[in-house]
C-alpha cells in the first residue's frame, strides 16, 4: 500500500466518522415533525426537547417538543384549537393553527406508522 492509498482511505474513513457523528448521534426511533408556515417548512426531531417560535400570518406561534411529542403552547389565534389539541407523537397526526396558517404533522419513519390519525 502506498501513501496515496493511505490518504484516500483516511479521507473515506473520516467522512464515515463525520456521517456517524452528524446523523447517528443520539439515535432515535426516527419520528420527526414537519412544521409548515407562510415562510416555508421545517423539520424538527422529536427526540430532543426544545421550544420553537414560528412566524405565522397573524404573528408568532410557539411550539414545544417534550418527551417525544410536539404541540402548540402559544398562538395568536382566537380559539386556540391548536393548543387544545395537545401534544402529538403518533406518525400521521396533524394539527394546525388555521388562522395563523401554521400546520404541524408528525412523520413516522417506521413502516408500521400511521398515514393519518382519524378523530
Amino acid at each position, binding site marked *: 500500500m*502506498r501513501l496515496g492509498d*493511505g490518504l*484516500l482511505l483516511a479521507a473515506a474513513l473520516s467522512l464515515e466518522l463525520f456521517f456517524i457523528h452528524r446523523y447517528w448521534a443520539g439515535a432515535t426511533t*426516527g419520528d420527526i415533525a414537519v412544521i409548515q408556515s407562510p415562510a416555508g417548512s421545517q423539520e424538527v426531531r422529536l427526540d430532543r426537547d426544545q421550544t420553537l417560535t414560528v412566524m405565522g400570518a397573524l404573528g408568532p406561534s410557539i411550539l414545544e417538543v417534550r418527551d417525544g411529542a410536539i404541540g402548540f403552547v402559544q398562538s395568536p389565534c382566537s380559539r386556540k384549537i391548536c393548543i387544545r389539541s395537545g401534544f402529538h407523537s403518533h406518525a400521521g397526526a396533524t394539527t394546525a393553527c388555521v388562522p395563523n396558517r401554521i400546520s404541524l404533522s408528525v412523520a413516522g419513519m417506521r413502516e408500521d406508522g400511521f398515514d393519518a390519525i382519524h378523530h
Partner: protein
Amino acid sequence: MPSTTDHRPALPQHDIQIARFAALAAAIHVLEAGIPSPLPGVKLGLANIVTLIVLWRHGWRAAVAVTLLRIVLSGIVLGTLFGPTFWLSFAGGCSALLALLVGDCWHRIAPRVGPGPLGLSVLASCTHIQAQFWLAWAWFVPHPGLFALLPILQGAAIVTGFATGVLATRILTRMRELEPALPLPPQ
C-alpha cells in the same frame, strides 16, 4: 470463427479489447444486480474492477469507453434503460469515473506517492455511493430519515471499495505475470 479466406479488414485490436472488457463488465454488473442487497444502492461493485484494470493498463480513454458501454449495456439487458435505476447507476458510474480520472492524474503526476488500484477503488466506490445517495435524495425521496442511512452506505462503500481494490490488485499482478511486457502494479 474467421476463416483464412476472408479478406475483409479485421477490427482494430484496440476496439475489440474495449468491447470485450465492456461485455465482461456488463455481465458482472447484471449478475451483481441480481444478488439480493441488504440495502438499496449497496452492492459489491465488482464491475468496477474492470474499470480499474482498464484504467491501469490502457489509460483513461479506454476506461471511460468501457464504463459508459457497461452502464448502457446493462441498462438495456436489465430493461432499466432511462428509468430511475438507470439514472442512479449512470450518476454513480459517471461520478466514480470522474473521481478515478482525478486519482489517475495524481498517480501520473506523482507515481511513487499517488494512489494505486487499492486507493482508487475506495475513492471510486465512495464517490459512487455518495452520488447515488444525493441524487436519490434530491429526486425520489427527499425524506430527512434517509440521512440515517448515510453512515451505513459510506461504511459499506469503504468495505466493498477495499475488497474490490484488493481483488483488482491481485488480478493485475496475475495479468502481469502472464504478460511480462506491462508495468508491474504496486505492492
